[in-house]
């Protein structure tokens, strides 16, 4: 097993009391597998990804990568955040080189590697552009290049295409599938979009509302490249959606409480490091 | 100039003002430099107010200074006698109470309810003005009365006089003369009238106590030059005035008008006598006014005239006690 999640649970302590994001979760992910996580808002998907990345500590349980317990962030597990999280003070090229610099790759090699991945995401012409000059889709592609440049074993993607318009999203789905076919990374992909999960995943895991547990797994054995508007995808998606909706209504009622809670979380989140 | 170390330097503070005539002329014509010879290099520091000079001496950046009596007293008292000594006099007289000619002030009683400017709170003229006003039976504003003493920088006094915002001012020369000539002022009182023999100290020389202890020889040489300058000025006031005004022009960019200079000069005397009695009187007045803290000032030891008297003796002049 590439990635073993063993009895992981997480409880947040805040001024208002404690909040259990998820109950003990067990999950195994094979090398080269593309796993999509679906679940109602606030159920703990991001938290789980953060724990795998080593950016957050589980309250109980442990995560193992290649059999070794994860204790801190490591460049063999790289996260791609919802809004790309590019550094605005660096241009596109420097953003892609950032991680390489951190792990001490020599300068000339950095250049070569970064250029290769920028080419892979079709942004070679934009290497001198500032971040704010890119469209949302272009930013996501830079973030993907920045992550891939580190040649991680595992890619963790937290709603990376959530904020994009449909057309751009479709293009990126194709690109991500192509990249994955070529590099065979292990990918854990969080999304709210059921069709997206079906288009991308080998396996789709549906989580319940908070405290999250694994509600059901779907193995998606459709041939690649999959198209989001194909009947097969729509069909599978409809089944999963029905399952999700049970929970969504429950969590919808929770919106106001959630808003407040999230504001708090932001405050607490300030001293991350 | 050769690179002299800190130890071989005499730092002297003075103002570009006619009450510091010896300093201005002595630096201009090289008298001080000649007197000190190769022993030490002279360093002139120009100030425009006594407290700043005291601050500089406290900070260890000034060895000798020409200065008015009250800043010297303040410095002595605040440092509990540790910081400085008076070693010679420089000027006597030269302070007047000027009133606006159109303010309708004919007698002292007419000053009731008026605004009287002085150059700086707690300075020589300020103390004199307050003491005199109280003696005339006025209550000052701080005591709940209606007559007000307004400490104001000299140039502003001139402006405010012109704008008729103040009615009178107790100022040192040449501001007295300038108020008369440039702002329709009238001399109401020459401070000399208030003191025995018409003598009271306006400027004298102080030395930092440490410097006096460590370099008495240099101080003596300096004093010798000071006495010599005093004599020269009194012997030929006309040429002294000319030199003085040239130096004022050099330092401030503007000479005094002849009329102002002549008037002002006539009301002051150049002397090396520190006029001890007037200083004690001034200190008492300052204490009465609350400027010197809770206990009566102990000025024993503020004077150290040993060196001055040695110089005078060498020149066959009578000693000062």
């Amino acid at each position, binding site marked *: 097993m590439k990635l073993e999640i063993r009895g992981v649970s997480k409880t947040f302590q805040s001024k208002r009391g404690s909040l259990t994001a998820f109950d003990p979760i067990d999950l195994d992910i094979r090398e080269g597998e593309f796993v999509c996580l679906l679940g109602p808002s606030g159920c703990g998907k991001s938290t789980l990804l953060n724990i795998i990345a080593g950016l957050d500590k589980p309250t109980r349980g442990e995560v193992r990568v290649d059999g070794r317990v994860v204790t801190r962030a490591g460049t063999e597990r790289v996260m791609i955040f919802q809004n790309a999280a590019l550094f605005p003070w660096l241009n596109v090229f420097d953003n892609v080189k950032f991680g390489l610099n951190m792990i001490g790759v020599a300068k000339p090699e950095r250049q070569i590697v970064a250029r290769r991945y920028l080419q892979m995401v079709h942004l070679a012409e934009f290497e001198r552009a500032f971040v704010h000059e890119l469209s949302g889709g272009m930013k996501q592609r830079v973030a993907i290049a920045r992550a891939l440049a580190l040649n991680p074993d595992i890619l963790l993607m937290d709603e990376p295409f959530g904020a994009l318009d449909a057309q751009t999203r479709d293009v990126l789905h194709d690109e991500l599938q192509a990249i994955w076919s070529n590099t065979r990374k292990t990918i854990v992909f969080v999304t709210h979009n059921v069709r997206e999960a079906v288009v991308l995943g080998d396996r789709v895991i549906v989580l319940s509302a908070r405290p999250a547990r694994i509600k059901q797994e779907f193995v998606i054995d459709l041939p690649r490249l999959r198209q989001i508007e194909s009947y097969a995808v729509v069909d599978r998606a409809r089944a999963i959606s029905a399952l999700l909706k049970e929970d969504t209504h429950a969590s919808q009622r929770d919106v106001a409480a959630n808003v407040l809670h999230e504001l708090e979380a932001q405050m607490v989140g300030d001293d991350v490091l | 100039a050769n690179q002299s170390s800190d130890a071989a330097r005499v730092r002297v503070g003075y103002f570009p003002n006619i009450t510091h005539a010896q300093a201005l002329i002595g630096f201009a014509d090289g008298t001080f430099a000649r007197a000190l010879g190769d022993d030490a290099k002279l360093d002139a520091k120009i100030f425009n107010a006594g407290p700043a000079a005291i601050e500089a001496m406290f900070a260890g950046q000034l060895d000798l200074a020409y200065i008015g009596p009250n800043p010297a007293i303040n410095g002595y008292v*605040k440092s509990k006698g*540790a910081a400085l000594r008076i070693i010679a006099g420089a000027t006597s007289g030269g302070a007047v109470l000027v009133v606006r000619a159109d303010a309708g002030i004919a007698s002292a009683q007419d000053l009731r309810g008026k605004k009287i*400017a002085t150059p700086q709170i707690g300075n020589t003229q300020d103390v004199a003005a307050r003491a005199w006003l109280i003696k005339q039976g006025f209550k000052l504003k701080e005591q709940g009365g209606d007559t007000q003493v307004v400490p104001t920088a000299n140039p*502003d006094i001139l402006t405010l006089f012109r*704008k008729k915002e103040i009615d009178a001012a107790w100022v040192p020369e040449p501001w007295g003369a300038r108020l008369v000539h440039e702002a329709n002022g009238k001399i109401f009182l020459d401070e000399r009238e208030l003191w025995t023999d018409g003598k009271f100290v306006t400027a004298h020389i102080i030395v930092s106590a440490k410097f006096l202890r460590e370099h008495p020889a240099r101080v003596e040489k300096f004093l010798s030059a000071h006495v010599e300058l005093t004599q020269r000025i009194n012997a030929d006031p006309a040429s002294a005035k000319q030199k003085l005004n040239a130096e004022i022009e050099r330092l401030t960019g503007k000479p005094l008008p002849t009329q102002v200079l002549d008037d002002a000069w006539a009301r002051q005397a150049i002397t090396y006598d520190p006029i001890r009695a007037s200083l004690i009187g001034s200190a008492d007045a300052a204490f009465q006014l609350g400027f010197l803290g809770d206990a009566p000032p102990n000025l024993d030891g503020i004077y150290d005239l040993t060196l001055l008297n040695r110089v005078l003796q060498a020149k066959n002049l009578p000693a000062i006690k």
Partner: protein
Amino acid sequence: MLDQKNIARKIIFFVALIAAWQLLAASGIAPEYIFPSPVGVAQTLARGFANGTFLIGVATSLQRLLVGFAISAGAGVLLGLALGRIKLLDETVGALVLGLQALPSICWLPLAVLWFGLSESAILFVVVMGALLSITLATEAGIKNTPPLYLRAARNLGARGWKLYALVILPAALPAIITGMKLGWSFAWRSLMAAELLSASLSWGLGHLLSFGRDLNDMNQVVAVMLLIIAIGLVVDRALFAPLEARVRERWGLGAQ
């Protein structure tokens, strides 16, 4: 719980600071007339409050500050509004405002004394010149940076004329205006102290008391007045601006900071 711990830490820190200061002063490495001691300063404070001079000083300075600041705030917002909305004015008067903003307001003092004499107006003028322009510029920037979308939305919902100004343009610029006010206040406070230090006056503010301390070479008085000035600065900031800012931040949802 956490807050109590914070406060305790602060108290310990400041007590230690004062103790260290007293030790240093008592150790005699510098004479008291150069390095005043906490005890001497406390005595001066007690005396100053007992005889009323400090209270009068505080009241005098505060009054000047409030009057000067009120004038600056009113005029600054109006002028900023005009500059932000009227292009011709912005190109001409705007340049003048920018230039004058580069001039420390204390430099006006000599002229102010000439023009206004000993009256309060001279000091007030310096205070206003200190605060007015930064409030003007902040308001102008706030108005220019208002997302045009708000204007479109407002027009689209029927807003016209003064209602557009009062109910959309000004509120939209409010966070920027408050920032400008805070900056203006801090310039006003600095200008007031400098003006009082430099000018004669019929009623004595804190700056005058500080300057008297200097003139009398009384460092206890200097430090005592400095502490008063810090206290007032902190109190005004806390009492006036902190709640205002907090309210606006809450409304706008501008981060918790």
